[in-house]
Structures are given as structure tokens and as C-alpha cells.
């Protein structure tokens, strides 16, 4: 039982990160109908910038309680700038192009960002310094540490703030309007370019936060870290119904749980024939299963009638 509880916690922590990154995919998709393949790299840049700022301040007299927020803001700022530029350079000129064209530019951006990160920050793994003592807590035999608790809490906080923003503010209303119908939104006096830019920047800010969470939790930062995370988060977004904010959160948490329970119990389920080596295959099988019964994801309503 405590093993099961531990696996739930493992999944929840992992899932919270997926959810934050998945939100970035889903927000862009909801508005532009575009898979922003470079989003994973934004997470990586966030982690790298945070690491750089922390290392710059570590030697100084600043206490950790100041260093962390400063690093956080530096990362968020850098990522927002990056998100804005990506949209301007690689996506906006292609808004009316055949719809696979932006997919290729996205892949191009992803390669460029990865290579630039490799040139700037080097090929090796970096340690992400531990700023605060990280204590473990015991819940009925299962263990969770401070960083993991913080991840879950911050993820919840950020997501509820985003929901408030989208559903309770003028800007949020404008975003929903653009997602619904771009030309009608123009007629309503909405500056859609601005709204789209802001969407990219918001998604990138979430990516920056996720990047710091991941680095703090695992203690390592690497220029290649964005790729896998981005892929998983994209999967999570689709699982929940891409374009749907609640879906991205649900999908993220579910994917985290599926992975950890899958890794923990596939062996038992198949009588030892398969093991945790089929963890990813299992996750994809669940995804395919869900999509067969709900072709637009768990919470997705609209059918994207394009190919």
C-alpha cells in the first residue's frame, strides 16, 4: 500500500511539471491551431538562464531568499522574450501558409535553440545548486521532499492564476475570442497580433517556471533536456484534448500517474513478461486507447477538421 501511495506521489510530481509545459502547447494550439514544437526548448532556456543567474549571484552576499526570485524573474523574462521572438520570426509570416509549413519552421527553431544553447552553455551537464535545505517528509510510509511539495503547490497556484486570467479578465476574453474566430475578433476591435504575442509569452513564462522546477528537482541542467520533456508534455496536452486548458492540466497529471504506475506495475500485470522497459509504450498505448474512444481527447470538444 505504501508502495502504491509512493507511486501516486511520484506520478503527481512528474505530472505537475508535464501539466505546466502542456499548458504552453495547448494555449498556442487553441489560438493558432499550431503545434509549437520549439516549446520544449523554451523550458530548457528557462532552466539555463535561471542557473546562470543563480551562479552569478551565489558568490555574492545575497541570501537565497532573494537569489531564487531574481533568478525566477530573469528566466521568465528571457523566456517571454524568446517566445515572442519565436512567434514573430517563425510563425507569424506563415499564418496563412499551408499548415505543415510552421511545423517545419518549429523544428528548425528547435534545432537552432538547442545548438545555440550548446554553444553558449557548453556540452556538459551542469549542477543546479540547492539553495534551500531539502527535507523529506513521511506520509504513511511514502516519502515526499520539500522541492516536490513546492512543485505541486506552485503548479496548482500557477494554473489557477491562469484560469482566472483566461476566464475573468478582458485579456482572457480577448484570447478566447481569437481562439473562437479570428476575423470576428478583429471586427470586435481586438488586436489579434497582440493577443497572439501575449499568448506565446504567457506559455513561455509557464515553461520557464517548469524549467526551474525540473532543474531543482533533478539537480541537473543540460542543453538537451527540453526535447523529451516537450514530447511528453505534448502527449499530455493531446491526451487531455489539445486546445483545452483544463484538459492540459488533467492530461499532464494523468500522464505522470500512468507513467509511474506503469513502471511500477507492468511487471506484475504481465506476470514478469514485460517490465518497466515498456513504460513509454504503455503510456502511448493508453493514449491511443483514449483517443479511439474519445477522438478529441478527454476534455476536447472541437474537432480539428484539418490535416
Amino acid at each position, binding site marked *: 500500500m505504501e*508502495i502504491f501511495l509512493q507511486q501516486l506521489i511520484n506520478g503527481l510530481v512528474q505530472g505537475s511539471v508535464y501539466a505546466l509545459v502542456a499548458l504552453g502547447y495547448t494555449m498556442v494550439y487553441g489560438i493558432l491551431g499550431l503545434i509549437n514544437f520549439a516549446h520544449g526548448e523554451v523550458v530548457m532556456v528557462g532552466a539555463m538562464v535561471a542557473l546562470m543567474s543563480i551562479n552569478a549571484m551565489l558568490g555574492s552576499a545575497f541570501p537565497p531568499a532573494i537569489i531564487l526570485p531574481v533568478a525566477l524573474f530573469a528566466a521568465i523574462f528571457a523566456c517571454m522574450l524568446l517566445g515572442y521572438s519565436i512567434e514573430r520570426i517563425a510563425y507569424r509570416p506563415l499564418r496563412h501558409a499551408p499548415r505543415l509549413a510552421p511545423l517545419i519552421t518549429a523544428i528548425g527553431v528547435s534545432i537552432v535553440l538547442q545548438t545555440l544553447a550548446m554553444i553558449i552553455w557548453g556540452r556538459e551537464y551542469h549542477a543546479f545548486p540547492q539553495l534551500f535545505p531539502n527535507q523529506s517528509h513521511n506520509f504513511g510510509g511514502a516519502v515526499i521532499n520539500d522541492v516536490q511539495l513546492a512543485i505541486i503547490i506552485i503548479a496548482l497556484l500557477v494554473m489557477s492564476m491562469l484560469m482566472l486570467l483566461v476566464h475573468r479578465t478582458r485579456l482572457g476574453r480577448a484570447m478566447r475570442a481569437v481562439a473562437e474566430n479570428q476575423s470576428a475578433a478583429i471586427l470586435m476591435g481586438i488586436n489579434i497580433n497582440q493577443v497572439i504575442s501575449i499568448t506565446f509569452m504567457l506559455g513561455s513564462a509557464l515553461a520557464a517556471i517548469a524549467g526551474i522546477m525540473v532543474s531543482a528537482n533533478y539537480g541537473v541542467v543540460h542543453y538537451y533536456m527540453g526535447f523529451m520533456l516537450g514530447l511528453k508534455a505534448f502527449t499530455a496536452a493531446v491526451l487531455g484534448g489539445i486546445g483545452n486548458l483544463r484538459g492540459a492540466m488533467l492530461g499532464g497529471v494523468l500522464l505522470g500517474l500512468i507513467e509511474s504506475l506503469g513502471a511500477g506495475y507492468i511487471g506484475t500485470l504481465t506476470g514478469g513478461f514485460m517490465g518497466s522497459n515498456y513504460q513509454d509504450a504503455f503510456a502511448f498505448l493508453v493514449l491511443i486507447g483514449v483517443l479511439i474512444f474519445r477522438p478529441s481527447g478527454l476534455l476536447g470538444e472541437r474537432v480539428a477538421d484539418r490535416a
Partner: protein
Amino acid sequence: MSRLLFTLVSAAFVFNLAACNKADRASSAENGNDLLVRIGAAAPLTGPQAHIGKDNENGTRMAIDDANTKGIMIGGKKVHFELLSEDDQTDPKIATIVAQKLVDAKVNGVIGHLNSGTSIPASRIYSDNGIPQISPSATAVNYTAQGFKTAFRVMANDSQQGKVLGEFAVKNLGAKNIAVIDDRTAYGQGLAEEFIKSAKANGAQIVAHEYTTDKAVDFSAVLTSIKSKKPDLLFFGGMDPQGVPMVKQMKSLGLAAKFMMGDGGYTPKMPELAGDAANDMYASLPGVPLEKMPNGPDFKKRYEEKFKQEIQLYAPYCYDATNVMIAAMQKAGSADPAKYLPELAKLTFDGVTSKITFDEKGDLKGGAVTLYQVQNGKWVPIETLGMSGK
């Protein structure tokens, strides 16, 4: 914008041509007084393993620079060595292209590749063209088992290393219930299999065999299920990028077992990045500790001065591999692959990693393996095993 691209592409192409011509021109230098010997190096210089690949290139470069400073003579001629380094991107397909390119450039020998997955397909091309290939780090048994006369390695293979590791775990560390994780790469799979064989043969029980990937950072799920089996030792067949978060998560989950890795874990990054969590963990490295070899400490010092970084992993092996190749050329009095290959096969050479002799397959004879432990954030050699024969 398109014009700029076009210009760039065509300029790149022109220079490409120019580069080819340069190689041709250089080969005509052989007719002069100096003998030009080209050594090819192949490793991933981009992608996730780029840092280790660059380290390999550095090791080879150092051997070549040393040889050039020393002014080595082969067959009565002064030799100028040239390094041709290629990026195989850890991709088996690119590896064969790179191999063919090195063959085209008329290299006299190749140091590489880093991985088994690239060394194996490339070895066929080197063999077809009679070019000796010494891999510094490919450990798959398969690599030298293909029957190619040109394939060598200066590193213990999986079976040699796995055997020693298994023995050490059971006999020296007294492990009875062992859990194993492998990263499902050619390296991790091979090492874990051989480790399991050896541990079982020595009377231990494998209570869990779990898996991860070489891109993962979260191991909490597999570690949790391993925790429930209560092992006294966890062996991970994989590299340090996974090892670091794994050992941290072990501690965080309260999994109290000894932690052990193969050569993929013996890196300065391991204790540096994992901090206290890495204390007391074990890792192995084929060969004898650098400090104990006559030229080892000197090599280490010069490497750090020259490249402004610590040795990552296999640089000493690349250094040795290159020097072995040069020594064979000197002995044969020729840099012609066909002439020095037989010498290479029967050479005995004192390297910085160990005494190097090849068996009939091209594997390292003897294959000493040293076990290290992290003590107070530093790797400390514990014991060198398997010195005498296989």
C-alpha cells in the same frame, strides 16, 4: 534572405570542394622529405553525448600533438601527424558515412568510435579498406566478434568488466539481494547482462531488474518498486547523466542500498553534480588508476592545462589508442596500414591506462578493471581486479 541562404550554401559547397582538394594536395607531401600520417578520430561531437565525444577527440589530439613535438621518425623519415576528427552524431548511419570519408581522406588509422552502436557498422568499412581501427570505448562483445582483423579496442569489453563487477559486488561488498537497472542502450544492456550473469554465478540473487532510458531524469517509479524488494545493492548499467539524478532520488526515497555503476559512472561530474548523495557509491574503470601508472599523473596534469577542463571519461584511452597505433607504425617502419597492422596485433605497450596487448580477436588481453569509490566527494581507487588473464 533566400539569396543569403543560397550564397551561404554555395559558399559552403565551394569550401567543401576546397577542403577535398586540400586533402589531395597534402597527400602529395608524402613524396617530399616529411611523411604525412593522418589519424582519423570519430565520436559524437553534437547531441547528448557531445561532452564525452569532445573529450575523446581531445585525448587523441593530445597524443598527436605529443608525437609531433617529439619528432617521431618512421622508416627513416620524419613524420608529421594530422588529426581528422569527424562527428558521428551517435547515429549508426552517419557513422558509416564518416567512416567512408575517413577512408577517402586516406587516413592511416582510426581512433573510434565512442559507442558500440557506431563502432560496429563502421568497422565493416574500415575492414573492407584494411584500415586499423582502435576503439577507445566501445564495449559490446559483438564489436570484435565479427571476425574483422582491423578492429581493436583498448577497453575491457562488457563481459570482462561485468564479470569483475559482479564478483566485486558479491565477494567484496557482500551483496546477497541485488537489484539492477539498465538504460536500454547497447552499453547498458550489455553490461547489465554480464553483471547479472557474474553476480548469479557468485551466489547472489537478482531480486529486481528494472529499466529506464538514456533520456530519462525521473527514476522515482522504478526506484520505488525496487525499494519494496529490499535489495542490499543496486547496480545501474548506464551513464552519469542518469546516474546523478538516480542516486539523488535513491537517497530522497530512502532506498538504503549500496549503489554501483560501471565505467559510465566514473566521471568527475558524478560526485560534483550529485553532491553528498554520491558518497560511498562505487564505479569501475577498465585499466589501472592513472595515479599508479608511470605517465598517468603527468598526462592528467597536461590534459587539464591544455584543454582547461578535467578529463571526462575516455580521453586517456584515446591517448593510449593513438600511441599504440603510432608505436606499431614505428615498429613496422611504415605507416602503411597493411604493413603495420600485423605489428599492432602483437604489440605490447605501456600506456597510461594499463599495459596494452591485444588477443586474437582484438580485445584487450588481461583486461584489468579498477573499482573506485566516492569518498568525501572524490573518486578513490579501492581495488584493481582481473589483472591475470580473463
